[in-house]
């Protein structure tokens, strides 16, 4: 392999580019599935106590190589007018927890008293995650009616939604009494990669949604009832609503963000060094065709996203024509990438990279093991202040592109709402609370720090970082950040989150792409619906028919399934 340089931080960490991300084979859902299949996880129900209306509770028993876990789901009646995806809701169709060990009667009773309350309840350190979900009532009832009458559901209708339930929150990392991440790392190594527990919750929820549906389908009153076609089952994912609460996360965890980006970029550099053979290019074109169909099946009313999708499709079709053109002589992947950079949208460029990663699992997949990192923003008090100033110049040169005397650059502030302790966005001079804003204006803080640092160094060239902080103590937080992030390859997300026109959607999508979600459907600039695990193997397939090639799933054509052909 040639040694190919990584793409530069100025390019990769641009928020607009990060906001054009897609799921890849390094995304956490894909990684989890490979782990479950490769290590032969055993997942079965130890309880399935649902009544004829589908209410009650179930417990999944999960055996991984290192851990014995339980996933407990409570299903309750929810009046249609009480079904609310917003974080202020206090009742849900389903509530659930992932926990270690078995669930005895005492434990079940404690969980039943707390898990349905979500934020208002308490779980303990045996629990790893807490979550809830609401039914997509319209599609659920349609599918149920069809199956009860012995008919398969309308796949095109399913394609518009893509799921029976959608989660509105998945809490981990010590929230509401759950165990800390440190415990997961030490005691549950199979879950010790970023968001593996949260992804497992969503995956098992998807399986429950199918099993609950079948429980409701196969009742005495419906003698002609049939199971959902397996291809359709696989096409069902879990819906997800993600809002502002997730947006500050990437900024508040810069080391993790930089680490995730580094792994993907390392994978891409490895791929660029491989020869672009005819079979690989042919495989890439097949993946492009599938991705195009996937994008065509995305249903969104958001004009911005719909336009992005149109551009993406046009770009991919153009790229396909370019491949097929007699005048195109493909020499290597770098040439293809350069062509895309010159001619296509950010979404097309980033999608193409992910499709190229699909071609080389042998050199890409091992990088998933490097996604986790111990976080600690720290500085060395004995370091020279001059070196800190140098670090700003080398790593944070981009912050000087902003003029913070311009009111537009400081027009937005982020804060926590008192009601649900959730992040919100405000406009300076319009909304109350600017004095309580969250520490997300990194570019401004670095500029301010640099100004004071220059003043100190002007007076004392030999000053240390500690000398600086003793004189300017309010910079301690940003100094720790600069000292830490200047040691990373990719550093910070390059954006001013205080800018008037800031688009939180880019932050949401960047993180969700690393999760591995698909079908981004913005509902405003502040929140997005998407789909998880669509196309993934079912639980019954983990030990029998596990497959990894489920990116960019497309609606099954039931007319051509073996079942339809035979029957």
């Amino acid at each position, binding site marked *: 392999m040639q040694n190919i340089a990584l793409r530069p931080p100025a390019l990769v960490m641009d928020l607009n580019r990060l906001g054009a991300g897609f799921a890849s084979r390094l995304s956490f859902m894909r990684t989890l599935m490979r782990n479950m299949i490769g290590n032969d996880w055993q997942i079965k129900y130890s309880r399935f106590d649902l009544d004829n209306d589908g209410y009650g509770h179930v417990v999944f028993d999960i055996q991984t190589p290192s851990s014995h876990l339980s996933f407990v789901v409570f299903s309750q009646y929810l009046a249609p007018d009480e079904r609310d995806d917003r974080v202020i809701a206090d009742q849900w169709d389903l509530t659930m927890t992932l926990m270690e060990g078995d669930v005895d009667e005492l434990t079940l009773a404690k969980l039943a008293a707390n898990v349905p309350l979500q934020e208002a309840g308490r779980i303990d350190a045996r629990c790893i995650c807490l979550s809830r979900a609401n039914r997509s009532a319209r599609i659920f009832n349609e599918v149920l009616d069809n199956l009860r009458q012995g008919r398969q559901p309308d796949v095109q209708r399913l394609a518009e939604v893509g799921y029976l339930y959608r989660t509105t929150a998945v809490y981990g990392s010590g929230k509401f009494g759950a165990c*800390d991440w440190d415990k997961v790392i030490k005691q549950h190594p199979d879950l010790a990669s970023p968001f593996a527990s949260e992804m497992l919750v969503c995956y098992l929820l998807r399986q429950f949604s199918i099993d609950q549906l079948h429980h409701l389908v196969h009742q005495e009153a419906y003698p002609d009832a049939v199971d959902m076609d397996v291809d359709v089952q696989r096409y069902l994912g879990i819906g997800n609503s993600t*809002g502002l609460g997730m947006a500050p996360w990437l900024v508040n965890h810069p080391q993790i963000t930089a680490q995730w980006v580094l792994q993907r970029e390392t994978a891409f550099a490895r791929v660029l060094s491989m020869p672009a053979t005819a079979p690989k290019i042919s495989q890439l074109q097949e993946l492009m065709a599938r991705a195009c169909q996937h994008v065509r099946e995305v249903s969104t009313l958001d004009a911005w996203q719909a336009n992005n999708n149109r551009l993406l499709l046009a770009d991919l079709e153009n790229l396909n024509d370019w491949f097929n053109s007699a005048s195109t002589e493909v020499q290597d992947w770098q040439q293809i990438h350069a062509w895309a950079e010159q001619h296509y949208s950010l979404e097309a460029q980033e999608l193409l990279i992910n499709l190229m990663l699909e071609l080389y699992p042998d050199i890409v997949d091992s990088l998933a093991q490097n996604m986790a990192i111990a976080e600690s923003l*720290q500085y060395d008090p004995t*370091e020279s202040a001059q070196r800190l100033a140098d670090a700003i110049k080398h790593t944070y040169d981009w912050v000087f592109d902003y003029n913070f005397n311009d009111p537009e650059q400081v027009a937005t502030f982020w804060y926590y709402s008192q009601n649900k302790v*959730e992040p919100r966005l405000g406009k300076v001079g319009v909304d109350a609370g600017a004095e309580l804003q969250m520490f997300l204006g990194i570019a401004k803080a670095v500029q301010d720090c640099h100004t004071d640092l220059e003043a100190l160094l002007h007076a004392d060239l030999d000053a240390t*970082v500690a*000398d600086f902080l003793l004189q300017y103590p309010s910079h301690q937080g940003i100094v720790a950040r600069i000292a830490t992030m200047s040691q990373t390859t990719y550093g910070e997300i390059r954006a001013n989150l205080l800018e008037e026109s800031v688009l939180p959607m880019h932050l949401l999508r960047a993180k969700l792409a690393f999760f591995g979600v698909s079908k981004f459907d913005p509902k405003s600039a502040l929140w997005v619906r998407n789909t998880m695990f669509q196309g993934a193997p079912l639980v019954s397939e983990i030990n029998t028919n596990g497959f990894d090639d489920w990116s960019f799933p497309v609606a099954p054509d039931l007319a051509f399934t073996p079942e339809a052909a035979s029957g």
Partner: protein
Amino acid sequence: MADSVALSANEIKFMIKRSVEGLGFSPGDQLGAGMRVATCYQYGLVDDKTIHNALDSLLPDVQAPKVIEHGDEWVFDAQGQSSLVQAELAFGAAMSHGVMSIRLRNTSQGVLVAPMLMTWLSKPMNQPQMRQDLSLYYVHHDGSQRCLAMTANGSLLGLYEPHRAVVAEDEVLLRVDEKAIDGNLLESASDLIRQREACLDKGISLSATLVMRLKDLMMDSFVPESDQSRASGAGPG
């Protein structure tokens, strides 16, 4: 509410961070405070009384310790500030000049600075003289003397009760490369690690009173809801 509540370290970090923010401290103070309280609880170095006292003595108008003596031992005045914040600024400043004994006066709950020192030690410092074991002397809330010993890489070596008084009640003292601690070993490194493991297993138990106090303090860092803020500034929330 029960008499005590089991919390995760992450919850404690968040509650302390927001509480300190609500009192008007800088982002660096907020993050540091959350981390040091959670870590000290995990190692069994503090109890609820320590945290109540640390909160009681927080002074938002005090920005940093002041140096008052520059001899073999550097002495700083914390100006009444709790060691929940800013205390490390004094130690860092003296350490960066190779000072081997540093005393911070007019502070409280000095043990809370320990996690910051452990973090610094976890990577070799630029100043070679500081790549050595540290001993942190402070007064326990029952009035007895304590010495927490740390290795050069930031691990805990043990908790001692010194044979003689080394610090006054409102002082904390850091010694670099002290060859032997003159005192009784109360908790070995393995004892301390065992306590941390137990906290991971069962959570950290705080009194309901302290939890309520932190929740009240946190509120001052949040912005009250309004229909306008919910309509314009919220996602699905």
